[in-house]
């Protein structure tokens, strides 16, 4: 759903009205685990997001609490995902998730030929641990088979050059637009002749996540953060061009937690994120997807778990990269994250990385559930396990 001018103005007005209220909102979820004498985390403008009217496509979407977990022993060969097996897993997962009679029908429950569809991948860990080209090719092929023209599909992430580095190039994906907020010119420069960041032309300052914390960036870091201050801006691609988002993260850990659907949307969309990691890691993951550009457009999540990691994430540390040999699918990002969290946690416990679950590991999911983004309680999640 593209925001019209009226709703944009509504958002800005609400932001002005509610930012003061946000300052006094208690921190829930993660804050509950803090001892009483510890300071509350910085305030944010989450109240602004929660005040925005929901739409028919708002998260958790068509299938709240339902997750298809498709595994296939043959999907990784010589350390690399196998494209035809990825396609089979994807097909089976779409049918199990939706209960549709045909694959075309399954896809068309989420998107139509009129949509501009963004495939939100995750290339941040480089070639070793990126959303696989094999899975993205399978997604595109099945979208095309469902009648979606290639020119209505965009592969995107925050960093355009990282997309290119891992193989999301026009050579590998002819006819598909590939773009990111943070970008360089042909000479490798982040700035134009006047010293202005190209990225500034790719953000929408009407849409932002505000948090009462900031961090100054030096000249080298700024191009990767785009702006300083207390605002993290959404990309204009998302707010103005895309009408639907298919989220395709990787099955990997982030410390004793995970970095799957919610984090791929949150940290993978907005600018100025370094300031958020230390004080608002979990809050950011749960709160940024509450804003309409993500909440109302992200209709499907497909976790690439053919190859993932259980330690060293979200970066790539080869010693901890493992073939999980599975895909997780769901419209409910919170439920998919919960299932993924349990898979990663089980591996961490088995490998002795952790002795027991940390109460903080899944706290951001509980927080996300409290915002109405999806189902975090395992008892209320329907997990459909399929082995090919």
């Amino acid at each position, binding site marked *: 759903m593209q925001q019209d001018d009226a709703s944009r103005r509504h958002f800005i007005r609400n932001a002005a009205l509610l930012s003061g209220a946000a300052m006094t909102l208690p921190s829930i979820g993660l804050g509950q*685990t*803090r*001892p009483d004498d*510890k300071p509350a985390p910085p305030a944010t403008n989450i109240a602004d997001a929660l005040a925005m009217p929901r739409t028919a496509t708002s998260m958790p979407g068509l299938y709240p609490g339902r997750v298809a977990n498709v595994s296939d022993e043959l999907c990784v060969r*010589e*350390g690399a995902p196998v494209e035809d097996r990825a396609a089979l897993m994807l097909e089976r997962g779409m049918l199990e998730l939706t209960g549709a009679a045909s694959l075309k029908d399954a896809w068309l429950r989420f998107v139509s030929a009129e949509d501009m569809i963004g495939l939100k991948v995750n290339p*941040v*860990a480089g*070639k*070793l641990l990126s959303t696989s080209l094999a899975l993205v090719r399978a997604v595109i092929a099945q979208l095309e088979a469902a009648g979606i023209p290639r020119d209505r599909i965009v592969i995107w992430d925050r*960093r355009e050059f*990282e997309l290119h580095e891992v193989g999301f190039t026009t050579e590998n994906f002819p006819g598909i637009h590939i773009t990111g907020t943070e970008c360089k010119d042909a000479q490798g420069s982040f700035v134009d002749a006047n010293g202005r960041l190209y990225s500034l032309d790719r953000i929408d300052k009407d849409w932002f996540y505000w948090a009462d914390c900031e961090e100054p960036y*030096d*000249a*080298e*870091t700024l*191009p*990767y*953060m785009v702006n300083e201050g207390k605002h993290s801006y959404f990309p204009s691609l998302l707010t103005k061009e895309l009408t639907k988002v298919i989220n395709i993260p990787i099955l990997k850990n982030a*410390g*004793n937690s995970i*970095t799957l659907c919610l984090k791929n949307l949150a940290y993978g969309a907005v600018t100025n994120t*370094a300031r958020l*990691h*230390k004080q608002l890691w979990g809050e950011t993951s749960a709160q940024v997807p509450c804003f309409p550009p993500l909440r109302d457009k992200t209709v499907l999540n497909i976790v690439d778990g053919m190859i993932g990691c259980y*330690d*060293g*994430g*979200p*970066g790539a*540390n*080869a*010693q*901890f*990269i493992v073939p999980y040999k599975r895909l997780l699918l769901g419209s409910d990002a919170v439920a998919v994250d919960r299932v993924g969290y349990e898979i990663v946690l089980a591996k961490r*416990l088995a490998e*002795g990385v*952790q*002795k*027991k679950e*940390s109460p*903080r*590991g899944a706290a951001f999911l509980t927080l996300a559930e409290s915002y109405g983004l999806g189902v975090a309680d395992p008892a209320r999640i329907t997990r459909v396990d399929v082995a090919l």
Partner: protein
Amino acid sequence: MIPRVVFSLTLFLCAVIAGAQSPDILLTTRDLPGWTIDKAETYNDRQLYGYINGGAELYLEYGFRQVVGQRCSKGEHEFMVDVYEMVQPQAAFGMWTLSRRPGKQRIPGIEWSSMTGNQLLFVRGKQMVNITLFDSRDETRNAARSVATLLHKRIGGMAFRLPKEVVSGALAKHKDEVRFVQGPLALASAVSDWSELFEGIARFDLYHWRVGKGASASDVGLVTFKSQRDVDSFLKAAGIAVPKAVKPGKPSADWLMNAAANRAARRIDGLRLWFVDGGSEFKKLLATL
């Protein structure tokens, strides 16, 4: 005349300083005949987000200076050599202990190293070297090993001197599993179960061992805090009451206990203490440490 001497001396010093900036870590085709060695890419602490997005914070927490990356390839064979220079040897050692998979095979001839099918990793002085293989063929593995041996020799320099409690005594046989942690992010990666115990403590030196197997393993820490306030905060979070008779800063012969949680601490000296947390080895460790 004098200015010219000063100028020449300055040039000489600059050359010496430049020479001291680890030029030996740069690989050339002479080091690996028949292979293509790409031009090195160097990223300093301010550029790290551009190189290892998603993992930069951990390096910065330990204290990071620069990373030099070089790609080596020969036909379909390919591996990447990253030499991370940290601000001090302890930082490099800490990063290495978090980056390696405990209990794995060592690179022959390199003490603080680990080796798996697609990665060679070692620490030497202020440098941590990470060689990532993009294929698992023998020729690639052999070339990567020769590069590891070569760089280990070239980097040379002072090896990090570990505390005597790490290299001798009851835990010496577990030294291949030790992890060295200095801040909250590393703690969350290495011993996430302890994150709440260190809540609000920004810097500390922690050597951590996991003794035993699986969920019944005991966690052991040798911790050096920066202040008595941090010691008090830690003990309080661990549920360990300190009797008034125990004076701050003085070694304690007896373990201070949280019997209900199977947690115990004993001050070694100053702001250093042992901490043992649960598991099947709990009593044995209290008796031997």
